[in-house]
């Protein structure tokens, strides 16, 4: 048995020695062929990116899509897209039926999802937010306090109450089913360094000059709390 294992390791070893990009060359042909670049950028914003650039964008930048979204969610959503916010990406104009995201299916869907999953960010550390099991009582109470009272995140983000009622603002993306959409490790990385992902955004930064400053421990609780949003208990 030992010999068999050694042989297995010998075959596996070269895979670890290869740089991560080898064999994973991102094929963006389906992404381009389906017209996605008309609304979505896939490279980090340039240094001179300003508010005019942001307001001219029609859809979110996807350069970190592979880190942001949960496995499987993207494929399901692209096959049957439903609006994530009830207003347009400019944050002011109500969305209409004309703003519906195009539907993808078949090979196009598979290829676009495969491409987007390669767009990851190295600063997102896997496993920072432990989502195994039920969150502790402290996380549940503190998370609710942070989200609904202290910072009133639901002023912009739609959420679902324990009775299934949708509450919250309309300008931010809905978090009503965040558990299946967002990767908690990315949520934490985003809360800690928002400007890295979106230099210009409508979301306030809660560390630095604020009335109630949040540190890494606060953000971990918040990310864990958001990871439970929309789960049927």
């Amino acid at each position: 048995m030992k010999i068999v294992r050694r042989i297995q390791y010998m075959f596996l070893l070269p895979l670890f020695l290869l740089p991560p990009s080898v064999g994973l060359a991102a094929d963006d042909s389906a992404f381009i062929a389906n017209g996605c670049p008309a609304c979505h950028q896939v490279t980090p914003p340039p240094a001179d990116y300003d508010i005019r650039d942001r307001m001219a964008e029609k859809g979110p930048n996807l350069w970190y899509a592979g880190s942001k979204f949960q496995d499987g969610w993207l494929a399901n959503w692209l096959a049957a897209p439903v609006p994530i916010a009830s207003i347009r990406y400019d944050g002011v104009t109500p969305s209409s039926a004309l703003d519906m995201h195009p539907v993808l299916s078949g090979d196009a869907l598979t290829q676009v999802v495969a491409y987007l999953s390669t767009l990851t960010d190295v600063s997102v550390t896997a496993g920072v937010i432990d989502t195994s099991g039920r969150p502790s009582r402290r996380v549940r109470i503190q998370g609710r306090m942070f989200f609904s009272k202290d910072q009133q995140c639901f002023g912009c983000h739609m959420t679902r109450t324990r009775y299934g009622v949708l509450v919250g603002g309309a300008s931010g993306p809905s978090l009503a089913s965040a558990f299946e959409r967002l990767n908690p490790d990315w949520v934490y990385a985003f809360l800690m360094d928002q400007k890295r992902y979106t230099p210009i955004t409508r979301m306030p930064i809660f560390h630095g000059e604020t009335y109630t400053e949040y540190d890494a421990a606060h953000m971990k609780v918040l990310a864990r709390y958001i990871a439970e949003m929309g789960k049927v208990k």
Partner: protein
Amino acid sequence: MRRMTMPVALLSAMLLWAAPGLAEDVTVKAASAKSATVDTKNLPRVELNYQFLCAQCHGRFGNATGPNASKKFEVLPADLTDGQYMAKFTDDQIFRTLTYGGPANNLSTLMPPWGNRLMPEERRELVRYIRVLCECEGVGTHFSVPTGG
């Protein structure tokens, strides 16, 4: 036939005279519908910041009709066009609210802090912009916040 031709001709003339007006009316309606999106090309920085950050709650014209303004919340966003209400705040208080959020002035936490998002000068511009919206002067009026700080 001749008797009938005259009224028809008159009616046609009237329609022709009115047509450009109708067309213009439609164009105006289309233009106003189009203006539902914010044209950012020629707007000054303060207007862009207002439309991007503040309008989501306070509305595009400051009258508390933004997409987040909902009666389901404990409070509605401040109506920035209400001069009587806004005159209660000094420029410093508005600046502090913009910087640290609502609790800094004993207001709702629904008002978020923009201190890390906007430069001090941008926040000062917004205070002046709000004073234009409310057509009011604050008590105590002038800034005591040092420039650049």
